[in-house]
């Protein structure tokens, strides 16, 4: 009898249909979220939470975009009186904080949390309850920041919050405290996502998916997760230091009592630079996946690609000082960081050349995801080249903290993050929802976005070279910056229109879009396309067995599968780290409300921590109940129970 990967009765011969249907019903009973609101709140399914995570992050993207729109409107002409410096400072701080902490990193981890278990052929993440907790902590952090913003407690010291401006003496009120605690929320969520991904990727790959057969996206998610694990604690601790300076009078950053304003910058950028690669590396994974599908050939140079990803991950930690060239650090140190910053161009270059070779050797198909990938090439290369330029200390001292840097970072982050992300949205939307986004609107979306991004940010290079500093709420008419700024604002309007088109596309597709089928692109290579769209709660009726890097290409008919996992309770197959040989079966916990409640107590703790240090004690006490209940759990019928002396 054929054991199917999908439990789609249509896909099997008629005589096998009742058995498949029965299997589907059984697995659905065990794995689906419960009914109604209760089931929704208790869900621990990586797909339900992953979707919420992506949508939440995208909503923050829209909010951050609106803030950027107001900023651009204010700067459209010299001496504009639309908003004053106070609101402007809050807006650009909110824009930076939102985009970096609430959108870019979360959306990348969210996509990974959704896709990785499907791509490696597993039923769920390693710690589903922890995943739910991480999502809710992130959500609460974002809500906290925006509630504060509407209450006029929006942070106003920049997303980088340099001391002493953000310190107790100059950061008046509770605005910076809100920022510091928001950071802690999102860092906790990020670290949790990282641990989920690392463990899931190491231990839950389908049998046969040895490390050298892992899809490149999974590799990039793994590298991203390790970077998060080692980078995010820096800013979490740094922001807690700042909060303590402000709340209980510590002197971490008070020069007069032996503290150091530069300590803040070192700790911040030791996180802040890897942060950029945390955003960029999963995007590289999107690019590799999408290029393989739309050229219908293997990515050229798989080992070089993997080594480049890992090298980028390592080098990413050696660059932080290039954000601090203007702070009078010894020249020897500067030279080292210049060299390291330039060297990171090599692994990136390797990947680009391999992709171009892949496209050359393949047969490109110009669907919307591939268009966005082409856009990624053009935009990111400009950002990468200006990045090599500012690795040079003398040149950086001219353009540091000017609009040249604004241009550079938006070229890098939009080119290296958002273009691949849009490609990924278009590519995986059918998998998420079962419906395919309109290609016609997609092409409009792409064209306007591409034009808008270049129109907005290219002039900023010139503005920076001609002396316009960043973070200025206005500028005088005599500076000559007016017309380029107006051009940039027109570009911003174009981006706005293109994002609206995307939203329209999504809304129309959800209402009555074309049904996608399991594999709408026809040439996908990774395992998520082996199951139905959207995937069932249990992902695969039988877990697949992998025999190559591109499992759907190597044996599309009658793929080998795993049998023998229990279907009457949630069970995962755990495999070995290197070769993915089946090792043991793991009983994974059922849905529960406790992660949500534990997240709420965490939220209460951090919000209260803005006002009183006793919040730690209060929050700790509140958290004990949910945490114990979370871990305790009742064994279900069929679970083994140990009694005295029994082995």
């Amino acid at each position: 009898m054929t054991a199917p990967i999908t439990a789609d009765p249509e896909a099997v011969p008629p005589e096998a249909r009742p058995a498949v249907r029965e299997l589907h019903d059984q697995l659905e009973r065990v794995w689906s979220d419960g009914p109604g609101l209760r089931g929704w709140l208790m869900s621990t399914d990586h797909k339900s939470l992953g979707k919420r995570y992506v949508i939440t992050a995208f909503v923050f993207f829209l909010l951050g975009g609106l803030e950027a729109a107001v900023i651009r409107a204010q700067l459209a002409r010299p001496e504009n009186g639309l908003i004053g410096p106070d609101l402007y400072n809050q807006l650009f701080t909110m824009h930076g904080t939102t985009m970096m902490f609430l959108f870019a990193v979360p959306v990348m981890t969210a996509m990974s949390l959704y896709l990785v278990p499907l791509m490696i052929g597993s039923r769920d993440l390693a710690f589903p309850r922890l995943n739910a907790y991480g999502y809710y902590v992130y959500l609460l952090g974002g809500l906290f920041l925006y509630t504060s913003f509407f209450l006029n407690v929006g942070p106003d010291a920049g997303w980088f919050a340099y001391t002493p401006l953000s310190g107790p003496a100059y950061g008046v009120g509770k605005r910076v405290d809100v920022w510091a605690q928001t950071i802690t929320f999102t860092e906790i969520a990020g670290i949790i996502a990282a641990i989920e991904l690392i463990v899931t990727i190491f231990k839950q790959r389908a049998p046969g998916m040895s490390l050298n057969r892992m899809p490149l996206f999974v590799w990039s998610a793994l590298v991203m997760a390790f970077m998060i694990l080692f980078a995010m604690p820096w800013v979490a601790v740094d922001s807690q230091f700042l909060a303590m300076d402000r709340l209980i009078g510590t002197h971490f950053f008070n020069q007069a009592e032996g503290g150091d304003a530069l300590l803040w910058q070192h700790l911040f950028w030791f996180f802040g630079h890897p942060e950029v690669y945390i955003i960029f590396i999963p995007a590289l994974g999107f690019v590799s996946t999408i290029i393989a599908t739309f050229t219908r050939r293997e990515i050229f140079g798989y080992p070089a690609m993997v080594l480049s990803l890992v090298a980028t991950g390592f080098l990413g930690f050696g660059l932080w000082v290039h954000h601090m060239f203007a702070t009078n650090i010894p020249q020897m140190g500067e030279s080292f960081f210049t060299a390291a910053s330039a060297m990171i161009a090599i692994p990136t270059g390797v990947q680009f050349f391999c992709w171009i070779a892949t496209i050359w050797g393949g047969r490109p198909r110009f669907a919307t995801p591939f268009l966005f990938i082409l856009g990624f090439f053009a935009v990111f290369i400009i950002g990468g080249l200006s990045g090599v330029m500012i690795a040079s200390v003398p040149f950086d001292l001219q353009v540091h903290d000017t609009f040249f840097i604004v241009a550079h970072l938006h070229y890098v982050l939009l080119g290296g993050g958002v273009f691949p992300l849009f490609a990924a949205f278009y590519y995986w939307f059918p998998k998420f929802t079962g419906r395919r986004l309109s290609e016609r609107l997609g092409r409009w979306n792409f064209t306007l976005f591409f034009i808008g991004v270049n129109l907005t940010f290219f002039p900023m290079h010139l503005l920076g070279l001609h002396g316009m500093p960043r973070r200025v709420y206005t500028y005088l008419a005599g500076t000559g910056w007016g017309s380029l700024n107006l051009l940039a604002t027109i570009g911003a309007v174009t981006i706005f229109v293109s994002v609206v088109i995307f939203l329209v596309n999504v809304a129309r597709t959800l209402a009555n879009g074309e049904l996608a089928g399991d594999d709408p692109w026809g040439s996908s290579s990774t395992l998520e396309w082996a199951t139905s769209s959207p995937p069932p709660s249990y992902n695969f009726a039988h877990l697949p067995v992998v025999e190559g890097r591109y499992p759907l290409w190597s044996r599309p008919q009658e793929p080998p599968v795993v049998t023998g996992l229990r279907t009457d309770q949630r069970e995962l197959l755990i495999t070995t780290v290197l070769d993915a040989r089946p090792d043991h079966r793991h009983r994974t916990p059922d849905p529960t409300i406790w992660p949500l409640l534990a997240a709420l107590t965490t939220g209460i703790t951090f919000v209260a921590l803005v006002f009183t240090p006793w919040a730690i004690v209060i929050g700790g006490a509140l958290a004990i109940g949910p945490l114990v209940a979370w871990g305790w759990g009742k064994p279900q019928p069929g679970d083994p129970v140990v009694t005295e002396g029994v082995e």
Partner: protein
Amino acid sequence: MSERESVRVAGEPGSIDVSGLPSTTFGHRTITWWGTIGFMAAEGMTLIICAVAYLYVQRNFQVWPPRETPLPSLTAATIQVLLMAVSVPVMMWTSRAARRFDLGGVRVGMLTSTGFALAFCVVRWFELHALHTRWDSNAYGSTAWAVVFAHATLLIAQFFESAALSALLLVGPVEPKHFSDVDDSCLYWYFMTGAWLVLYLLVFISPRV
């Protein structure tokens, strides 16, 4: 029973049957072990960053600890180190008991560890006083407190984990996976005590040399 033997080849070529695989294992074979390692990495980074801050601000002082601040007293911190050194063999014994599925053994082990963790927390209170400075005195005080307090959060968390696990083992129902949890808790214990040894050398010993 080797892993190889338990995987049988099912009907389809290449397909495999995993029903014979065990459902409880220990150590690096389990995902909780890896999860624990992940949290150890994140918390270890936190401690490292506090230590980095401590060393960084040291450059701003001509004498360390600064003038008028006495050296931290050694008594409490040394007792802590000795206490931890004693606790490690106990946890190693508990870990072996867990791997034998010896319910009596792990009950004794986890109750002892709860006691140890509580003792660590109490001694930590005296260690903080032994710093002879306040967090708001100067950057020395702030960073020294940061290092010791950051490690204290590990102790407090471990106390609650040990207590909860002990309660679970006593009240039940005990599942086989809980033995694996006890084993992971022992792993975390080694990390926690090892980390303190380094931080003890940093905060209590290094200002003396």
